[in-house]
């Protein structure tokens, strides 16, 4: 375990997250990419004809280098050793570390002009996931919770907000702030099923059914005297639990075909992408997958080569699958980090924390395909055109999903703006 620990760490908590071994996915052949459509499941596609909207966030933990990914500057003092390669969008170039993704860029767009003026991991994560600048004494909900709440149509359904990471616990996290724990994420991926989601062996199916009938009897009697939103929610939570037990296979990756599992790869990120596809197909509103770790203060180039090598294929396959299955139109995909990395290459061939000129990649629901928004200067040291903040991006995500980003949540007699009123969406990349 110890040997897998990120050893180029800067000493913050972010580095305690175990980094999975490099599994050499770069070596795997490109032939598998052909004939993808044969894997697309027509039954699933039909089911998704309903325009339920979803969101997939891929979080590049530790700070992805924009120069080794979405905004390469080859041949300059800051550019590093990698080339830029053409993509499926004429005129758009990205780093050669993303050859598979390059072929899918006609589904995706880039924002290259982010300036969050921040180089702190936790602050950056907070800003990018909540769209707010930290303020002492106040806590804001993350994008997943905001989207899950906005899309909640009531009724018993699977949880609306799931986070997948290598150390997923199967339990609920605290990321919904005032929206309440109902919209907090369930943490998955550490090979643990959702906590308590299997019926204990000493509880027979008959028993489970029988005791539920008595429970309903008692509830109905009480309901005839008093029914409130709270009592309904309590009754519903049991229905939701039942649904989870019944549909445990939704969270079970072994249900996916062997072919698919091989396609995505057996490393964590590959499996997590496949699980994300599975969850989105089952109408879970917001899924976040983490890929760790990009905090490359030492040996930036080697590590980006490794990490992006692991990222590139499964990500491109996922985009392709979502497209093939007709889901991309209704699924917003965002690849984000807490910040980018310094153009300046340090003495250890590393790049440090940098929030002043960096990029995200996004696409799918509500986003123009193949667009580039904003620009940095020749060697990437500053934003020259259309500077944006985390707040603008947050508005953009909501707007892309068809939500009014200037509206409010009404909770307990108080109004909470769903996004920071100081910002607005980036209209130019919205469809």
């Amino acid at each position: 375990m110890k040997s897998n620990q990120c050893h180029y760490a800067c000493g913050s908590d972010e580095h305690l997250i175990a980094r999975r071994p490099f599994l050499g996915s770069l070596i795997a052949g490109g032939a598998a990419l052909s004939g993808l459509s044969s894997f697309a499941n027509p039954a699933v596609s039909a089911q998704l004809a309903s325009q339920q909207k979803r969101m997939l966030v891929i979080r590049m933990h530790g700070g992805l280098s924009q120069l080794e990914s979405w905004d390469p500057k080859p041949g300059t003092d800051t550019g590093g050793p990698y080339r830029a390669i053409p993509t499926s969008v004429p005129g758009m170039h990205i780093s050669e570390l993303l050859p598979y993704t390059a072929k899918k860029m006609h589904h995706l767009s880039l924002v290259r002009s982010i300036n969050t003026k921040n180089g702190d991991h936790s602050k950056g994560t907070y800003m990018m996931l909540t769209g707010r600048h930290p303020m002492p004494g106040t806590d804001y909900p993350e994008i997943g919770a905001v989207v899950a709440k906005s899309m909640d149509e009531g009724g018993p359904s699977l949880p609306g907000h799931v986070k997948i990471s290598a150390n997923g616990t199967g339990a609920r996290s605290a990321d919904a702030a005032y929206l309440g724990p109902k919209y907090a994420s369930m943490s998955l991926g550490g090979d643990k099923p959702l906590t308590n989601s299997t019926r204990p062996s000493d509880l027979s199916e008959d028993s489970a059914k029988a005791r539920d009938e008595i429970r309903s009897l008692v509830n109905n009697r009480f309901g005839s005297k008093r029914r409130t939103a709270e009592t309904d929610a309590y009754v519903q939570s049991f229905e939701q639990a039942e649904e989870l037990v019944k549909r445990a296979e939704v969270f079970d990756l072994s249900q996916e075909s062997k072919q698919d599992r091989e396609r995505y790869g057996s490393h964590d990120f590959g499996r997590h992408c496949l699980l994300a596809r599975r969850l989105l197909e089952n109408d879970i509103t917001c899924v976040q997958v983490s890929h760790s770790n990009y905090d490359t203060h030492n040996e930036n180039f080697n590590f980006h080569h490794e990490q992006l090598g692991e990222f590139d294929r499964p990500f491109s396959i996922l985009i392709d699958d979502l497209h093939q299955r007709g889901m991309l139109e209704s699924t917003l995909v965002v690849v984000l980090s807490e910040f980018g990395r310094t153009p300046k290459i340090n003495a250890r061939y590393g790049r440090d924390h940098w929030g002043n000129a960096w990029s995200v990649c996004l696409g799918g629901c509500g986003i123009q395909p193949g667009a580039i928004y904003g620009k940095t200067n020749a060697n990437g040291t500053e934003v020259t055109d259309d500077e944006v903040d985390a707040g603008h991006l947050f508005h953009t995500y909501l707007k892309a999903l068809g939500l009014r980003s200037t509206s409010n949540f009404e909770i307990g007699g108080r109004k909470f703006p769903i996004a920071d009123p100081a910002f607005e969406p980036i209209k130019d990349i919205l469809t």
Partner: protein
Amino acid sequence: MTLLSLLFLSGVTTSVSASESVSPPPLHQRIDQLIAEGNVAAVAPRIGDAEFVRRIYLDLTGSIPTVEQARAFLADVNPAKRSQLIDRLLASRENVAHLASTFDVWLMERRGESHVKSSEWLGFLSESFAANKSYLELVREILAADGTPENNRAAARFYLDRLGDPNLISRDVGRIFFGQDMQCAQCHDHPQITDYLQRDYYGMFAFFGRTYLFQPDKKKPAVLGEKALGGGDFKSVFTEVEGAELPRLPHGRTSYADPEFEPGEEYSVKPDPKNKNLLPIPKHSRRAQIAAALGEEKNSAFNRNIANRLWAQMMGKGLVVPFDFHHASNPPSHPELLQLLADEFESMNYDVRAFLRELALTETYQRSFEMPAELSRQAEKVRPTLAELRADEGRLAEISRAAAGALDEAKAAWNAARIAAIPHENALAAAEQKRLAAQTASSKADEALAEAKAEVDKITATTVEGKTNPKLPKLEADIVAKQKAVDAAKTALATAAAETEKWRQPADAERVKVTAATEKLEAALESYQIAKPAWKLAQRKLDDAEALIAYSGTLAESKGSPDQAEQDAAKLAALEERVAATGQIAELLRKSAESAQAARAQFPDDVDLVNAASVLGDRSRAADVAHQTASDALSTKKAEMTAAIEKSADTGKGELSERATASFDELSERWSDAFATGAFTQLTPEQLCHSMLRATGQWDKLAIAGEAAFDKKLADQAAAAKKQQAADSKKESKSDDKKAEPVLTEAERRKFVEDYVDTQVSATTKRFVQLFGGQPGLPQNDFFATADQALYLSNDGTVRSWLRPSGGNLTGRLLAIEDPADLARELYLSVLTRAPDATETAAIRDFLAAHPEQKSVAVQDLSWALLSSVEFRFKH
């Protein structure tokens, strides 16, 4: 309102003795009266004993009663048993723990422990409540604590586990102790709330702005440090208004100025750049000032906040919702009542128990959560008052709007005055600075001259040669030059002083204008704070009345269609009449029985009185039973009708009934907001966990395990002593006192067992808090239900283990009962603290009959079903 209150008063005075007109009636009666003034129609009936005993145990001990406690209370024939139980529970050990836990959640909102152990903090709270410390004292101790051991380190958890962050502390002190979340006023006057001003936030911030967490050595405990300067300056991002606020309580009239110290003399222990481990101590602590201020000035926001929280604790809902949002646009549902509660709590010396006792004694508290009967008849009674209610609403709306306008004007005037004053203040400050600099220069010149003169004196005074010292002429010339410098400095100082004076007068004039504007602002605020709530109350009453009439209309409409509905309505009306009639009789008899009981207590030897009390007691109980029977019949009928409605909804004819149901639900909400029905709220995670432990008998099992652990400890000690003795006798030890046998008393045994149970229970409680508690640092009273909670209750091993039959636990007892009806009674009383009705008993009978082979499994399933029911999850 006046008319209603007059009507109400005239009704009451006939039944109370004349002597009571001299001293005010007890608080609980005054509360009921004010609640009644806000009700437009009939309120819910008084709860039965079974509902009462569950509710009061939950509220005062944090758990449902055990089956024995419930049984004992139900069997008690004393008519005064409710007030006796209230007193007994308030004196219980469980009450101390429950109050400590309640306040812990209010004060810390489940924040993690960073610098002070939660157990030490809870210990501090428990000791405080065991000693019945006044709330004011408690808060002052918390706010005065600084983390040093000599100054109540445990109490400093409030500050330390907020990491000493001045903004967070200011916000939370505002929220938790004054009921005002002024977060949005941090950067500007609150955009939506007229009476949250930026200067209020900074008045609060000024107490804490100099505070920081002092922990130079991470291995040593953190304490609170405080700087001697700064804190309280603000500038609006909207209006460019800036200012420096002195510490001031929210809406307080007193600003606490710092004592003046010579520059450089502000610290009693000065910061030492060479010694980072030395805690600097300012001579004046602004933070300590807040605890002092609370002792010195009456602050109505402080009193209202706690009165509202304690009210909500018992009544299920605050008069102001949410707790930390007291402001004029979110007025209390009952403004006069909140003021009464706040004032009375203060005059009863902030005695939490005495206050809770009064609340528990009210009719309002002891009201059923079910809607009153005969709503249609009520609607007809209300109809004629509509015009008056409308007129009231219109009149008060106008007054309130005018007050809001005046407040806006006053605010604008204040802002203008501030903006006008700023350049003058700045000019004065600049001039003053120049004057100070001139003064320093002048004193320096004086000193230099004196030094030069002293030098000359030294030379000339000593020896004869001195007078001819060759240095002298140069020195004397120097003196002349320095004299000139002194004169020049004096002139400069005089000019600077004159300049300062020139600026002082206009600055003072501006300040007077600002003060006048501030006074006008405060006055406008006060009028608005009275006018707006009065309007809201009138509005609510009007809306309640209209909702009632609308509901009755919908009912009549749905009755209009099939014959069945008409018959049902007639049947329902008859049943409602019966419930009302039996309720009246029961109420009358109860009061009579109570008076008789009181009289009997006064004259215990009066045989007639004893007889009368006994007869009246019997009658009262019989009447209660009759009333209960009637109520049950009504419930059954209603349930039938609901079922019929649902059925008709299934067949597509339910639109109207659906409307009726929705209208009824809305009415229920309204009645609940007006406290016309009793408390209905979720159990806290702690209450839920403890109640499950009580209901399943797991708590008792833990106590038995505790006893066993104690016995083992005794045995171990005895064995060790014996061994020691043997060793001693071998060695022929001389010291006798060593041989003293450890004697453990009964009190020690009890303490050991209690501690043992507490430890076990608190581990389980933690899990419940994780699942059922809100997010740390946020208010904890919002209800939410998630799948992982239900999964835990359904499948987790812990809850399942409590249900496994063993000895005298719930399922063990049930297993031993032959008769299904007896079994049903035991089950319902243990879990839901009530008897099952006929349908339920029949269902239990059927269930057991269907599972003859596996009674053990069946009783576990039944117990689980009741534990997981809505009825168990909520307080009602």
